[in-house]
């Protein structure tokens, strides 16, 4: 099972790496020595969230709560009240199970708890619609004070895990189930609250997060063949959203397309639209799941069926460009 650590041996760009959940579990192990203040909480899915790596290395800092997510969430708040920093880990849909506890015990009470969710989006695949959280970003974004993060590749998961640990306050972070490509350069550096331009362009900006960033980069390559120059932004912090960067992209490229493995309502697309409305309006298109539940299938098949592949991003970019006012 053990694969080479993501930190020691940076993989080649585009080569297939760990899943985001594996990267998360291994990051916890890497961070444990330097940060002795955090603990990890699990609800009978350690192998699924990647936290089994941490359990093996630091059994005394790992707490099993069984299939009882609501309790786990509020226990974490209690632990945080003593100064510990708990990572609450389960699948994204089961974080929603403990939503009200996250709202009250964690966020309302202002506790320093990190909620880390694996298995978001259509990326879950064959387990089907009941297991595919397409509304978690929206739900957690709506909780006052909750920071929401969705890293794109194993390198970023590693950096984001450390960053949210250093941030004092409640955070919801999405990992992912399927193995992913390494899409960010070795000198990439994650900053909480900041989007990053991964590839520059002048005709449009694609703003993506999570597994959708890889598709956005593919889309930019496809568009380049048609002489369309698309900028690609990795918006891995969805809340607070990087208003400044979005205004700059709106001004410089004139239109924006968002791309996410999530319902178009309430997630990255909505966050970007809200920002544009308040700062610098420009035509925008949203690529995401159009208010439907998912179903069983392989992630790539589902991406095609539900309209979130690179081709769909290309179409949205072209449409956004035609909507620009000259």
């Amino acid at each position, binding site marked *: 099972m053990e694969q080479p650590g993501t930190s020691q041996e940076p993989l080649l760009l585009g080569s297939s790496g760990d899943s985001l959940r594996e990267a998360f579990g291994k990051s916890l192990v890497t961070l444990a020595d330097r940060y002795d203040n955090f603990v990890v909480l699990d609800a009978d899915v*350690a*192998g699924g969230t990647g936290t089994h790596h941490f359990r093996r290395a630091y059994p005394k800092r790992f707490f099993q709560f069984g*299939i009882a997510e609501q309790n786990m969430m509020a226990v974490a708040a209690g632990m945080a009240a003593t100064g510990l920093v708990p990572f609450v880990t389960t699948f994204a849909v089961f974080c929603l199970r403990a939503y009200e506890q996250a709202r009250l015990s964690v966020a309302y009470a202002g506790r320093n708890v990190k909620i880390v969710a694996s298995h978001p989006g259509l990326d879950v695949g*064959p387990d089907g*619609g*009941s*297991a595919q959280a397409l509304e978690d970003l929206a739900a957690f974004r709506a909780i006052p004070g909750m920071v929401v993060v969705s890293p794109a590749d194993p390198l970023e998961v590693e950096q984001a895990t450390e960053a949210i640990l250093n941030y004092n306050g409640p955070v919801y972070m999405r990992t992912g189930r399927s193995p992913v490509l390494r899409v960010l350069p070795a000198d990439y550096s994650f900053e909480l609250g900041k989007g990053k331009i991964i590839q520059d362009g002048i005709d449009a900006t694609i703003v993506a997060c999570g597994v959708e960033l890889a598709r956005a980069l593919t889309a930019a390559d496809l568009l380049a063949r048609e002489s369309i120059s698309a900028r690609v932004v990795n918006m891995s912090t969805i809340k607070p959203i990087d208003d400044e960067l979005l205004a700059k992209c709106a001004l410089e490229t004139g239109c924006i397309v968002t791309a996410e493995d999530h319902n178009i309502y309430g997630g990255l697309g909505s966050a970007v639209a809200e920002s544009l409305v308040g700062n610098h309006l420009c035509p925008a298109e949203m690529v995401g799941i159009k208010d439907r539940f998912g179903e*069983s*299938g*392989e992630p790539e098949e589902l991406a095609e069926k539900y309209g979130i592949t690179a081709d769909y991003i290309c179409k949205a970019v072209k449409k956004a460009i035609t909507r620009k006012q000259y």
Partner: protein
Amino acid sequence: MKEITEQSVTITTEKARQMRRNIISMLGQAGSGHTGGSLSASDIVACLYFWEMNIDPKNPGWEARDRFVLSKGHAAPVLYAALAEKGFFPQDYLNRLRKLGSPLQGHPDMRKLPGVEASTGSLGQGISWAVGMALAGKMDQKPYRVYALLGDGEIEEGMVWEASMAAAHYKLDNLTAFIDNNGLQIDGRVEEVMSPLPIPDKFRAFGWEVLEIDGHDHRQIMQALNTARTVQNRPTAVIAHTIKGKGCSFMENRAEWHGVAPKPDEVEKALAELS
């Protein structure tokens, strides 16, 4: 009191064997899914579908039908095997488990497959569905009975006890919940992960009639169903002692087989044992 005959036991035993074969084949083809908990529940589900329940595959929406809720929704293959065997849909549907566009979703989806009484997969919720159906039956004075099947890890969910409280409060003697007590959940033995023990005492304390049986002994399952039908003013919990992976020696009692599908050579080996 239904008579438990040699013949009825022969029938359900043969059905359970056929269901286990189909569980193995469908999971083998799917390449992912939950094997152990589907096999541990096969005898209980076979007795329900082929001895106990009053249902009509030609009329899945029949109002007076008995209802079965697979609260441990990850064991979808055992439900699909029973429904196919009963004739709710063609057997060849089983070849498309977990594939794009298939009515056989990774977890049961009542909007996609006839015969599925509740969309489940998030543990703990199915028992509440069953309470709702049983309560509606009481309210409308309908004669149907409601059955739920829960995992022994699943009962760690607080919601299960909220539902249990409600079931006793409303005196739902038309409700029978089976606990598939196979002793394992994902991360290991239930008492090591987060002990729900003692299970019978807990249900008793919540006001339920409690029966304990060998969940692979068809006579005992049928006897428990007979008893549950005579209990008045309270729901019945049947704590069924089972073996996770039952029927395939190399899967039995092994937590690793919780959420893994057999590979082609393992399918062959398992089918040989189930022939």
